[in-house]
């Protein structure tokens, strides 16, 4: 699974000798380089450019700063309501001083409601259809603290986008809060933020 992911990441534009031949023809005059060598130069330059861009863009430049949060003592029904209203699938849990102490996501709700550890929407629906009742009922009195994943995987503001991508991939996460040196929430980065920032403008 991990290797499949890596393969997908590694797919790059496939440039051919013929593309280079065409490029050489576009430039008037004689360039003493073969299409093959030019392709090597182009590939190397492209790799340098993507690495430079990837390492120069930092977390604080791409993060979303308007973050919806809940406190550790927020009731789960309020957490669920907020997520539903704002159309978000996860949010950070903070304490009184604004420090991130955990993260709560749809996944946490699903695994709390399902019988099995890796639950899904379809599993819950299945269980409901078999007449096992509303599995969310027992969590009525519980708070964010009871369900959150803690400690949350957080990102320092100066982490390069390239490393954020690696982190998301290796941890299998979709979002991570950006926190300052004291652990206080500064923003949040989702996969969508990374995709928006990764488009190389010609």
């Amino acid at each position: 699974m991990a290797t499949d992911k890596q393969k997908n990441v590694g797919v790059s534009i496939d440039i051919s000798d013929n593309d280079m031949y065409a490029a050489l023809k576009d430039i008037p005059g004689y360039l003493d380089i073969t299409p093959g060598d030019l392709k090597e130069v182009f590939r190397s330059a492209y790799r340098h450019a993507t690495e430079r861009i990837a390492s120069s863009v930092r977390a604080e430049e791409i993060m979303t700063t308007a973050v919806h949060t809940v406190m550790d003592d927020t009731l789960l029904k309020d957490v669920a309501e907020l997520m539903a209203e704002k159309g978000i699938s996860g949010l950070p849990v903070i304490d009184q001083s604004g420090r991130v102490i955990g993260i709560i996501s749809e996944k946490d709700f699903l695994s709390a409601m399902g019988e099995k550890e890796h639950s899904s929407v379809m599993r819950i629906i299945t269980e409901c259809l078999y007449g096992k009742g509303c599995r969310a009922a027992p969590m009525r009195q519980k708070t964010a603290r009871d369900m959150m994943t803690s400690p949350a995987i957080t990102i320092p503001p100066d982490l390069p986008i390239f490393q954020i991508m690696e982190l998301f991939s290796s941890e299998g996460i979709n979002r991570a809060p950006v926190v300052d040196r004291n652990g206080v929430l500064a923003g949040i980065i989702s996969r969508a933020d990374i995709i928006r920032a990764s488009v190389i403008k010609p």
Partner: protein
Amino acid sequence: MRGTYFEKMKGSTQSPPRVSLAEMAWSWIGAFLGIGFISFMNYHVFEKIDVLMIVGSFGASAVLIYGAIKSPLAQPRNLVGGHVFSALIGVASQLLFHSHLWLAAGIAVATAIAVMHATRTLHPPGGATALIAVIGGEKIHDLGFMYALFPVGGGVLIMLIIALLVNNIPKSRRYPEFWI
């Protein structure tokens, strides 16, 4: 291991495209004016005072500075540096090893290449300039290190001036890419 060694001899890519007719025409004009001017001076002015002004390697330089003007090998730094350094090395090699001309010739060209690389002045005709210092005969040998200054240095400067004048006439051409 041996498989890849012979595999490499097959080549891996194709020849670059042919240039336009205009490019061919401007290469012709530049080379004709450059070599023509130097040869005229050689035969009608300097020969009368028994001074040599042209060496064979200029023909090779003409290919680069009139025919492949974008090449790093064709830039002024390479043209002048490559010829002058190679001339000095050729003369030194001839003086040191003239009792074994084959050795003097080999050392002259090989060292010229190494020095041109080291000084970032690689210019293929420089190899010929170094070789001519050894195999060029009495008239060249008698010049001693002056060979590097004249005909080599002086002749190359004239070729450079003509390259600057001719190569910048058409819109599609520009010379040099860099000076030093």
